[in-house]
């Protein structure tokens, strides 16, 4: 009986595996695109899977960079064991466990129809219960945030999970800046009790201080990883 059961399940697993992988990939693509939701023609949540795939294929250019800001070739990404070798294939959950200096980072360039470009960067940190992560979209100046999308493993529904569920909270990030006037890195702080600075701070979520602090920490650390790369394209 056990053999029959195992066979049935194995068959089903093999049969459904491509669909699972496709769903997983689409889920990630949707998260990446939702960071630039404001600049899409229609509402992302109402789009079909094919439409999402189409936008992703047509308007996104993927790059992989390392901690020194150099672009990493596809072969090198493949050598690290990420099948496909593109930025979307990198398993960031594995990647953040490696030595910081050796980590590679995905960069997604989103081009609007009128030619404006957005840089979508990835960052990962810790919330209250488990990991949280986010895609942060930057405008052309590589300083102003154009949009964010956060996700989490299991933050408390209604409290920490608001970072994902509450669109209004995420919208606060639009227009915030991460560099001050001198060009030194400052990041965006999630401030408990309400933002005190119009440019570098956003309101916290009441009852979810630890998750919010996690977001602050993740932004300041994760975006700093990209600094060498951002400097190199700014010239």
């Amino acid at each position, binding site marked *: 009986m056990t053999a029959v*059961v*195992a066979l049935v*399940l*194995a068959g*089903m697993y093999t049969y459904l595996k491509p669909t699972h992988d496709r769903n997983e990939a689409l889920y990630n693509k949707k998260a990446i695109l939702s960071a630039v939701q404001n600049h899409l023609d229609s509402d992302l949540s109402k789009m079909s899977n094919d439409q999402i795939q189409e936008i992703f294929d047509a308007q996104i250019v993927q790059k992989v960079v390392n901690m020194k800001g150099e672009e990493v070739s596809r072969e090198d990404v493949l050598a690290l064991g990420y099948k496909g070798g593109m930025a979307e294939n990198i398993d960031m959950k594995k990647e953040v466990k490696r030595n910081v200096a050796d980590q590679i980072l995905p960069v997604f360039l989103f081009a609007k129809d009128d030619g404006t470009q957005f840089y979508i960067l990835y960052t990962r940190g810790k919330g*209250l*219960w*488990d990991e949280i992560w986010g895609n942060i979209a930057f405008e052309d100046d590589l300083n102003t945030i154009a949009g964010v999308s956060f996700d989490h493993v299991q933050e*408390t529904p209604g409290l920490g999970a608001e970072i994902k569920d509450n669109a209004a909270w995420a919208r606060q990030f639009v227009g915030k800046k991460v560099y001050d006037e001198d060009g030194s890195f400052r990041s965006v702080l999630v401030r408990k009790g309400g933002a005190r600075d119009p440019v570098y701070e956003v309101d916290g979520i009441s009852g979810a201080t*630890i998750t919010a602090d996690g977001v602050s920490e993740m932004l300041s650390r994760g975006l700093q990883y990209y600094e060498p790369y951002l400097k190199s394209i700014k010239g």
Partner: protein
Amino acid sequence: MDLVNIFIKSAFIENLALAYFLGMCSYLAVSKTVKTAFGLGLAVIFVLGITMPINWVINTWLLGENGIFATDLTFLRLILFIAVIASMVQLVEMVVEKFSPALYSSLGIFLPLITVNCAILGGSLFMVSKEYNFSESVAFGLGGGFGWFLAIIAIAAIREKIRYSNVPPALRGLGMAFILTGLMGMAFMSLMGIDPAAFK
């Protein structure tokens, strides 16, 4: 992560019973008196402490891509985990019966119940999603069991007392137990803010 840290965290902050509400069926059914609750609580610590490391070994060495079959067999995870839990419970039952009849007579009837206690399977699944290593999974198992033990003792004590209170008839017993658990859950939520690193 520090092991003590994980122990404290899983016992108090991420309490299986009062923060995740796992193992509620036996929690509500066997918490009428402190004595029986004590027995079940001990049995849960026991089984969680044993199955967690075994399931860790199975998950890492048998099912993982780096395991002996070198393929991704994770779709068999649920079946193997539950089989391990069921057989461990039976094994523990036999061992305890042979070597400590006194403990068996106090634990005996609760052991089979534990198989369907979702705190056990839930603990194993959480262990997988949190990617603990071997020693961490032992600490997580013991801590989780201890937390569950504390929770069931606490509710049993309250239920013993509340029998003398004037509760509306329709709410008596089960209904009140639910509301009490909810209140205890709220109390445990206040522990969420603790930084487990402080216990180092």
